[in-house]
């Protein structure tokens, strides 16, 4: 298992880096940025997949399978919907290019 300290350090570093980079985004693009971030928060699908998969292969019960599959569905809706919507919005900004 990855050590808790390492995980907390990763969290801290990525927060700071993210903060610094996102500060560069102009308010013109805040809605696409936000929906992009929103899609990224569906990254929890990674967690849902590993938790559900491991549970199935180690003989977890039907309850954890149900919870796990629901988690995967929700996260997948978040990811696909989020990136799709962001893409549509960004294409709108770009179609004016002459």
């Amino acid at each position, binding site marked *: *298992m*990855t050590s*808790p300290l*390492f*995980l907390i350090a990763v*969290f801290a570093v*990525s*927060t*700071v880096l*993210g903060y610094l*980079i*996102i500060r*560069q*985004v102009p*308010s*013109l*693009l*805040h*809605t*696409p*940025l*936000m*929906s*992009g*971030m*929103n899609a*990224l*928060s*569906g*990254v*929890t*699908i*990674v*967690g*849902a*997949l*590993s938790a*559900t*998969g491991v549970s*199935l292969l180690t003989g977890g019960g039907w309850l954890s399978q149900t*919870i*796990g599959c629901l*988690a*995967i*569905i*929700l*996260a997948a*809706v*978040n*990811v*696909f*919907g989020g*990136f*799709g*919507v962001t*893409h549509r*919005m*960004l294409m*709108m900004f*770009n179609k004016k290019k002459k």
Partner: protein
Amino acid sequence: MPTLQIILNTLLAVMVLLGISLMSRVKTAVAGNLLSALALFVGVVATLLFNGIVSAWTLWPSIIVGAWIGSMMARRVQMIQMPQTVALFNGLGGGASALVGLLSIHGATRFEQVTALLAIAIGTVTLVGSLVAAGKLHRILNQRPVVYHSALFHSVLTYAALFFTLWAVVDPIRYGDTTDMTLNALAAAVGGTLFGWLFSIRVGGADMPITISLLNSLSGVAGAIAGMAIGDVFLVAVGGIVGASGLLLTQIMCRAMNRSLTSILLATPKTPKTPPTLPTDQALIKRVMDLEKRIQELEAIVKNLEGRVQTLTTAIDSMPAPSAATPQDVEGTTAASVLRAAKDVIIVPGYGMALAQAQHQVHQLATMLERRGARVRYAIHPVAGRMPGHMNVLLAEADVDYEQLYEMEAINDDFATCDAVVVIGANDVLNPAARHAEGTPIYGMPVLNVDQAPQVIICNYDLKPGYAGVENPLYSRQQGVFLELGDAKETLQQLMSAIG
């Protein structure tokens, strides 16, 4: 193996950061979004491989169902529904994180148990809060902030939420291995639900940009904590990035509305409307200084007007005598005649434009004016609309070139020198009372300097005060203000046919 996994995860996190930094310019933003999506895709594949769970058959139908629903929604949703869509997706992500937490409450270490419970709590806050916000934006729920009549009831609920959450999280720290975690999970979920509900139900329409940004941040944090519970570096990193972005947007929104985050979180009513009873020396000095400032502003406007009179006089003098003036010119100025003559126009859109879905008409008007040789720009207040950047998206949908969209700081000095301003469904963001009316909710909020413009055409639905409930003195200005009331779509149409 774990080393390889960590290296790959770090690389993927860098890819995500790169994708976001590409999103800071319109030209590269599409690529940035795709890069982030690719990173996520690789992350999913890597997770399947590293955990040896490719053969776990239940995963596949779940992914397909979720992907299908998500893609369909992404394709169907209208731009006008974007705020509630973002809120809804956001809530689902939070819900998924809560479920991941629920799956891992039987972790081996206390760290895993505690983070799993925290993920449940924060995930449910996000889920419930986002669903309430989405319901309000979609007008299923009342848009007005709901404040429970009895402050006691409210505090009791808050403390209950706090108690449930704290107990759930602290309990395993004390008795880690012996307690039955089901009860803790339940308590965390109840606490989270209460918090989410309390947080969102009392937020009104105009505070939505702040709420959505904050919920976005929370969904990231929920993901990161769920990642800690299952020891997934990629999840922790990306969750952290999302959390930071939401927090940053929240800060920007708060600054733009001159509200502090705590005042929104704790639902403290904004500065009470009590007039200052005993004007102290300090207050007097401040008032004098404010008046002084106002006089200077007015002087600048007069100066500007004098200059315009001068240029107009010389222009008329140098013109050959006109053959015949159009009847409207004789009758006096109308909104149409002002726009016909204007060479420099600023358009100020607000939430009313979104409500009336008038962005296409706005663009038509702008094109019409441009064809007549005018320069048209759009002034976008940071909190106009219901989510950060709302106006930009709507105008982009109507084919407005993004280079014509200006942020408040970039255009605020130009209002005094432009020929005309067209306001479409905006009120609070241009209410000059924000500068002087101490004790009102909008006092101190940075506003667009529409009042400095010589001619202002207001296409609002009515003259009622905006969300903040403060009268707009601009409406009663004697000169240079044209009120075109009613549905913005129709008034703009009429305006355009009048311009001809």
